[in-house]
């Protein structure tokens, strides 16, 4: 009698995604490469943004949606570029009409150079959007207290940064990420900062439920190879987290028994 294989999908707001890797579509210079990255990562959800229609422009916009449709991935609209709660709320409402989804990756930025979140505006926007029926996934700092406040207002997940967007600096404060993991029942998705596969593995080893990655793949020298590497990193880290790592020790502990050694004197 064999048990049904346990699926290891990422469940957010009752919806199961078959992959723990959410792919950001930003930074790909060719849609064909984006399509290949979707295939190789096995992602079930990708982020998209909204920008003004270039009046009299070409038909490039349509083909992004065509690529996403062809790969049957879910769409997670973001509010990138918003600096106030008001702008972010309006953008989320536009996205709801554009993509027929009430899911939103909520970004409210507080600083142009670091693109770090504005905690106060983020919390206000999250609360308003939850009240308006949205499933809110906030991009947040790695502050455990802010993460708790976002959970309290009804967010569906928390998405703390490892380091600034596009910086590739990895996880600067693994301790904070662990605190967030320990205190929340919500899915924790590492968003921003991943530079390479080991960063993705570390996020998962720390107990994150998933990662969101864009630049590390799209801006890699070989995006498709990096997509494969980061997928493997996510899987390795997830397995390692479940396996339970050994405790760190200051000194060595031999794995070979000391007894029974031959007398070679």
């Amino acid at each position: 009698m064999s048990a049904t294989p346990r699926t290891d999908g990422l469940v957010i707001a009752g919806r199961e995604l078959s992959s723990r890797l959410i792919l950001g579509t930003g930074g790909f210079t060719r849609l064909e490469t984006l399509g290949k990255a979707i295939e190789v990562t096995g992602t079930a959800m990708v982020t998209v943004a909204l920008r003004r229609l270039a009046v009299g422009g070409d038909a490039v916009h349509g083909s992004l949606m065509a690529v996403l449709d062809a790969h049957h991935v879910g769409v997670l609209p973001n509010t990138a570029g918003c600096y106030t709660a008001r702008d972010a709320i309006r953008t989320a409402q536009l996205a709801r009409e554009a993509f027929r989804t009430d899911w939103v990756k909520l970004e409210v930025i507080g600083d142009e150079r670091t693109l770090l979140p504005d905690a106060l505006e983020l919390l206000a926007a999250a609360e308003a959007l939850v009240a308006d029926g949205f499933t809110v996934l906030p991009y947040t700092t790695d502050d455990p207290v802010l993460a708790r406040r976002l959970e309290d207002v009804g967010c569906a997940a928390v998405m703390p940064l490892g380091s600034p967007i596009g910086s590739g600096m990895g996880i600067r404060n693994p301790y904070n990420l662990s605190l967030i993991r320990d205190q929340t029942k919500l899915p924790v998705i590492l968003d921003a900062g991943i530079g390479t596969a080991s960063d993705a593995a570390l996020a998962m080893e720390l107990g994150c439920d998933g990662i969101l990655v864009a630049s590390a793949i799209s801006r890699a020298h070989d995006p498709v190879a990096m997509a494969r590497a980061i997928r493997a990193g996510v899987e390795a880290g997830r397995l390692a987290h479940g396996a339970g790592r050994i405790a760190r020790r200051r000194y060595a502990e031999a794995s070979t028994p000391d007894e029974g050694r031959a007398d070679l004197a």
Partner: protein
Amino acid sequence: MVISVNGDRTEIASGTTVAELLNLLEAPDRGVAVAIDGEVVPRGEWIRTEIGEDAKVEVVVAVQGG
């Protein structure tokens, strides 16, 4: 009648609806949303929402973004 579309001064016939404007702009069918004077116009209301004089219309479309 003059309106603003994505910041550009645009001349349209009075009584033009949102749906008609999107046709004129050759906007894609998917991944499109519209706001007039800062308020989102639900997709289902595009065919009956007439754009008023001096309206500030924003038409946004899906683009790549993290």
